[in-house]
């Protein structure tokens, strides 16, 4: 299900939070209501961790991660790194990387299997992404924009990209990523998709300016309507149910 919320009157929730299938990071500051909305939705399923990165609150745009790992920029302090390692599940590898392009959230869009990377990313970084996150990395652009992490929101079930992406690009990306893609907007026409929303396999959080149309597109492309947090039920559905009468 998709929820609408805002961070201190600001509808760019993808900037102040990072949501994956194994954990959720939320920025410090902002009213308690921001944090508690995440808590109510995600409560017992995954840990919700309050943090800052490099002393800033724009954590969603600085880090990139999936259920296997989390990549943080070199600006992350040792205390923050330790706090993340302590609070996140043991299966999640937290790695600080030395990369000139430190806004990793803007440069990398990833789900649990595949990642899109900024074209100017270092070779070492690309290898680290493949190792830590356990994904296949593709250097791509989206509608001519090299900041793939900003203009694309990606999960294992679907993806939403910049509204001006051409049909050919959509098809090409869809084949690469092996998920259905849709070109759309969030927050009443904002093109910066990943800044305006954050999403995982069963839930999404969008800025409060998001219109009902945008919300329904999001719910349909990410298949959130019938989504359940339990992975077992989904994966084993076919073997559990013999036939529908």
């Amino acid at each position, binding site marked *: 299900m998709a929820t609408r919320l805002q961070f201190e*009157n600001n*509808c760019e929730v993808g900037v102040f939070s990072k949501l994956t299938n194994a954990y959720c990071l939320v920025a410090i500051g902002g009213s308690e*209501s921001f944090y508690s909305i995440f808590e109510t939705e995600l409560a017992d399923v995954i840990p919700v961790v309050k943090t800052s990165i490099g002393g800033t609150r724009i954590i969603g745009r600085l880090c990139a991660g999936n259920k296997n790992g989390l990549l943080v920029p070199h600006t992350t302090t040792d205390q923050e790194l330790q706090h993340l390692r302590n609070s996140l599940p043991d299966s999640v590898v937290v790695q600080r990387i030395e990369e000139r392009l430190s806004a990793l959230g803007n440069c990398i869009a990833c789900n649990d299997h595949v990642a899109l990377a900024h074209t100017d990313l270092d070779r070492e970084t690309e290898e680290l992404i493949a190792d830590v996150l356990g994904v296949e990395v593709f250097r791509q652009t989206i509608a001519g924009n090299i900041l793939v992490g900003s203009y694309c929101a990606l999960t294992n079930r679907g993806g939403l990209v910049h509204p001006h992406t051409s049909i050919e690009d959509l098809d090409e990306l869809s084949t690469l990523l092996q998920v259905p893609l849709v070109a759309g907007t969030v927050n*009443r*026409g*904002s093109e910066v998709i990943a800044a305006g929303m954050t999403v995982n396999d069963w839930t999404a959080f969008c800025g*409060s*300016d998001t219109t009902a149309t945008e919300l329904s597109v999001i719910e349909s492309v990410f298949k959130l309507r019938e989504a359940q947090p339990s992975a077992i039920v989904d994966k084993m559905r076919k073997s559990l149910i013999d036939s529908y009468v």
Partner: protein
Amino acid sequence: MTPNVKRPRRKLVARPVTFSPFARSAAHLASAYMIKRQMIENKLHESCQHTPNGKCCGQRNIDETDSDSDEESSEGVVQADFAFFDPKPDDFHGVKTLVQTFLDNEEWNLSGFVDLILEQTTVGTVVKLEDEDDDGLFSVVTALNLGRYKASDIYMQLALELDHKCMKELEEYILSVCHESNLVEQLRLLFSKRARDVGLLVSQRVVNLPPQLLPPLYDALFDEVSWAVEDEPTEELRNSFRFKTYLIVTKIYKHKKANGKLEKKADNEEEPVIYVKAEDELFHELSSWSFSFPLKIQHVTSSEATEELRINGVGYGSRSRQNPHIPTAVALSDRR
């Protein structure tokens, strides 16, 4: 009866359109030099007929400013033609950015408030660049009737509950920050019984908007208010623009006085209050009453300002008739 309403368009050659801090400071310097240069050029035109001395002086000055302004003007001075437009739904994001800190860092239905501003196309102006396809908004000015957003009966109350929460939140915020008890009573009256006669004046703009735009901008607003009184299709709408009181919420810098200690730089020459918007000083002088309250939000200011000045918000109300600076408003109240 819809007459041809002529929009007072003022095309002014104005300075930069860029937004980085460097460009902003370059802009301030450049506009200061350009204005000085124009003044000197005018003086030169006048005085060249008269004294040869004057001409020489003028030329020397121009040379000075020439060399200085050349350095500045080569670095990012852009010619721009500004134009005034009616508010449109497309202006949502621009207006929202400008109105972001209207109520300090209070969490309220800001989007709803912006929607109300954009709905009112007859009174209200947005300042954009001359060519239609640029969406960058530089200023928004409007006057909203507080009474219009109040429910008159229970059904409307239920219907308006969702839409106009923003006006209620705004009124509650103003009541909560006002610490002067005599004014609180007056404010309560303004927000309830006399809400129909109160206009909330919203005027927000980018910091480096050329000041030459301001007189036409405010003229436009008050002209539109007086036209609306005559031209609006329904009686109710016409009456809703007969403002008896304007309410303004704005930001000023107040001099911090450390207890007992005298600042070395401070003192008598320093202004006790610095107005972010120049017209606020005039409004403040002419207002019937005002109060100030401290703002919680951290603003980006020069280091000198943060040390010495405390940022305050000021709310003031002004009875239209007492405001000679706004001739159309005076005319309105006289008609009654």
